[in-house]
């Protein structure tokens, strides 16, 4: 029995939905994104496996550590970022499958998601490059920009889900932060996306996702044409590969979070089918919020980005919160 548990958790951590699966699926999502953007621009586009090839190639390149870099921080940052992302995935329910519920709390996930970004900023900052300095500053501004609407969205969802919870002696006071609880509520009342009061919040969340991931219209921090990919300017070889992988995994994590918050509870009752369905939803969300925006828009300037998120996106999210509270 104990051995079975051990094997089960080992599989959860290392294979599905842990390390191996997140990497593969993240790279696949990134490939789909690039392919579809190319098709939208009437190009043939790279094969879907392209991000995986990029990753492998970078692993085979020489690693140059700049002489001016704080060496330990510079080398550790990408790995810490990647690992904390993979651990975050374990706390997000994917189609009803939540590997570990110990951190299944939206605020915890919100904070765990800042670790990879922090790793990017500190790694870049440690490289000693002025481009990386500017990039770190811009990345931090985009974090400040999306965090306000994101917490408003989370509160709106927590309130909407919480007002339905009256479960097994668990006295909930009209709010719940637990991701597990939010998913279970959606099994009872249907996906929160179809709750009209939460529509603005969902739109806001769809705009937050590309900013959090660092996708095209909001990639001020890693603008390769302006500041040499910002924090990544000095990275080469394997650490760079790990950063690119983290970027791909972040797409998966954020879309999975969206699905858990807004599209939970659509299921057939069969676990594996639900998981597949959740992955399909993840891909769909990626296409809607990242690929489409990438293909049709030009990059924001950093102060435009900040203003956009603190006015328009936060306004949408706040509107949702007010609707949930008073309707």
């Amino acid at each position, binding site marked *: 029995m104990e051995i079975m548990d051990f094997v089960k958790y080992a599989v959860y951590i290392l294979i599905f939905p842990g390390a191996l699966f997140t990497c593969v699926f993240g790279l696949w999502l990134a490939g789909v994104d690039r392919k579809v953007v190319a098709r939208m621009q009437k*190009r043939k586009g790279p094969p879907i496996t392209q991000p995986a090839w990029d990753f492998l190639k970078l692993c085979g*390149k020489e690693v140059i550590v700049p002489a001016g870099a704080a060496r330990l921080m510079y080398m550790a940052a990408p790995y810490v970022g990647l690992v904390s992302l993979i651990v975050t995935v374990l706390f997000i329910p994917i189609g009803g499958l939540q590997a570990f519920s110990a951190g299944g709390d939206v605020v915890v996930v919100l904070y765990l998601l800042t670790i990879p970004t922090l790793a990017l900023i500190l790694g870049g900052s440690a490289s000693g490059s002025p481009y990386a300095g500017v990039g770190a500053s811009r990345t931090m501004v985009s974090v400040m920009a999306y965090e306000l609407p994101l917490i408003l969205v989370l509160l709106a969802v927590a309130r909407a889900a919480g007002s339905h919870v009256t479960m097994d002696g668990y006295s909930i006071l009209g709010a719940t932060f637990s991701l597990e609880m939010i998913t279970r509520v959606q099994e009872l009342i249907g996906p929160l996306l179809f709750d009209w009061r939460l529509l603005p919040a969902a739109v806001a969340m769809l705009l937050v996702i590309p900013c959090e991931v660092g996708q095209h219209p909001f990639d001020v921090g890693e603008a*390769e044409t302006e500041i040499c990919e910002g924090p990544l300017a000095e990275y080469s070889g394997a650490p760079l590969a790990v950063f690119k992988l983290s970027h791909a995994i972040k797409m998966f994590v954020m879309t999975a979070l969206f699905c858990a918050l807004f599209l939970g509870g659509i299921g057939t009752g069969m676990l594996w089918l639900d998981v597949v369905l959740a992955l399909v939803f993840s891909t769909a969300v990626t296409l809607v919020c990242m690929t489409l925006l990438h293909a049709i828009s030009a990059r924001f300037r950093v102060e435009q980005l900040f203003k956009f998120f603190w006015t328009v996106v936060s306004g949408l999210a706040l509107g949702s919160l007010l609707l949930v509270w008073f309707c």
Partner: protein
Amino acid sequence: MFKKLIDNAAARSPWLYHINAGSCNGCDIELVAVLTPRYDAERLGFKLAGTPRHADIVVVSGPVTVQSKDRVLRTIEQVPEPRVIVTLGSCPRSCNVFKGSYSVAGPLDKYVPIDVSIAGCAPKPEAIIDGLALATQILKEKREAMK
């Protein structure tokens, strides 16, 4: 097996870094044309990198002026191994019409070994893709030669 996979990947994901060493901009436009929907070099995995640290292939255009010589060499040196140096157009190979000018320090092969040269003033996009495809093969060979 892992090593083989990585070696194969070297040819399938070449990232370019483009250095203008005093070019008239003709070749540079053609290089950008290669990325347009008509030619779409991205289907072969090509991508323009923002910094030499990310690059596999360094594309140099222009006759290497005195002002740019040190900068070009320094930038090439900062590209991690394995790397391939490609000259774009006639200028970096022969200095073309600028030959003999007091301000030209080229051609480039006085300073660094060149792996592929794409001829033409300016070369056609098809020729550029052909040259870059050749460069990816050299890249793979270099990667295999690494220990």
